[in-house]
């Protein structure tokens, strides 16, 4: 009985130790909550999203996605940035900000280290819709991205790409 109790305690401690950092570091939920407060609604439920992603090459990226549709509130880039101010931990660096007044769309891309990998969070607000995506870019995926672009660069040199050079 004593041994069982000890094992159970050990398991509980392990689960707690594993779960705590995950919960504490879950800035995605904080970001989503902050936007929920601002727009007054919860994100749309996308059925079987996890299952669908599992069968795509993106399964290693641990993608989290939240979409708010039919949003009546609008965001400027400054509002979006200030909304995220208290929601995300200081490790997140907003390194790309795009503000299109023409299209009423603004995007902020945050990045942070996640071990030796990179974690990205992309927040886009456009007319009637806000999307939050978080994904990990593990070494393996980085490698495949690099290989792919390298291949595209070679094609570009041989004039096999389309006219604008952006590739397919």
């Amino acid at each position, binding site marked *: 009985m004593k041994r069982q109790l000890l094992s159970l305690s050990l398991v509980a401690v392990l689960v707690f130790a594993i779960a705590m950092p995950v919960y504490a570091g879950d800035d995605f939920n904080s970001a989503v909550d902050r936007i929920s407060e601002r727009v007054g609604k919860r994100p749309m439920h996308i059925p079987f999203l996890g299952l669908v992603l599992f069968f795509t090459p993106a399964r290693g990226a641990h993608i989290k996605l939240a979409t708010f549709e039919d949003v009546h509130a609008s965001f400027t880039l400054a509002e979006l940035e200030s909304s995220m101010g208290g929601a995300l931990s200081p490790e997140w*660096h907003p390194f790309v*900000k*795009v503000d299109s007044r023409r299209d009423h769309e603004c995007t902020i891309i945050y990045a942070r280290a996640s071990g030796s*990998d990179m974690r990205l969070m992309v927040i886009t607000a456009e007319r009637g819709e806000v999307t939050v995506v978080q994904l990990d870019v593990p070494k393996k995926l980085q490698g495949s*991205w690099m290989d792919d672009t*390298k291949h*595209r*660069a070679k094609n570009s040199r041989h004039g096999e790409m389309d006219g604008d*050079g952006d*590739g397919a």
Partner: protein
Amino acid sequence: MKWLVRMVCVLLLGVGFASAQEFPWKVNLDKFAAESSETVDVTLDSNMLNLAKNFLSDKDADQRQARDIVSQLKGIYVRSYEFDKTGVYTEADLESMRAQLKSPEWNRIVGVKSKRDGETDYVYIRQTGGKMTGLAVIAAEPRELTLVYIDGPIDLQKISVLGGQFGVPRIDTGHAKVEDSHKGKGEAE
């Protein structure tokens, strides 16, 4: 604009990510942002540069060299503004920016003015102790203004290793071309 997207990709993937730091110009960029229909702001501080280094493998010789370049950079900053009308920035604004990149620290290596397209491009390098320690680009079109600043040692010979990688076409950056641009041949001023 496509060249800007490509450049951003290069910065992200090849050269890396930098601390919220300032451009070498003391200019009120907010006024351009306020008047622009599209604004792109890329700020890659040293933390981000370190992070981006992870993209580059130690095993591949070219990538290792690219990694060396990234390791030494302090920051990369891009601001691009697109306007719905002309005249948002003036020649005086450009002149003010150019005037702040003074010699002997800063030297202009490229100056292009196209009357046909109304486009003006300037590339400046900063030299400290005989080494290139910074690069600044001012690219102005009637409805577009782009400013780029790379802070840190840049070796034009080494940077050529980025060609053929990350979607960047191979670029010939031989000494002759650099010297030519110093002389300001062709369309250059």
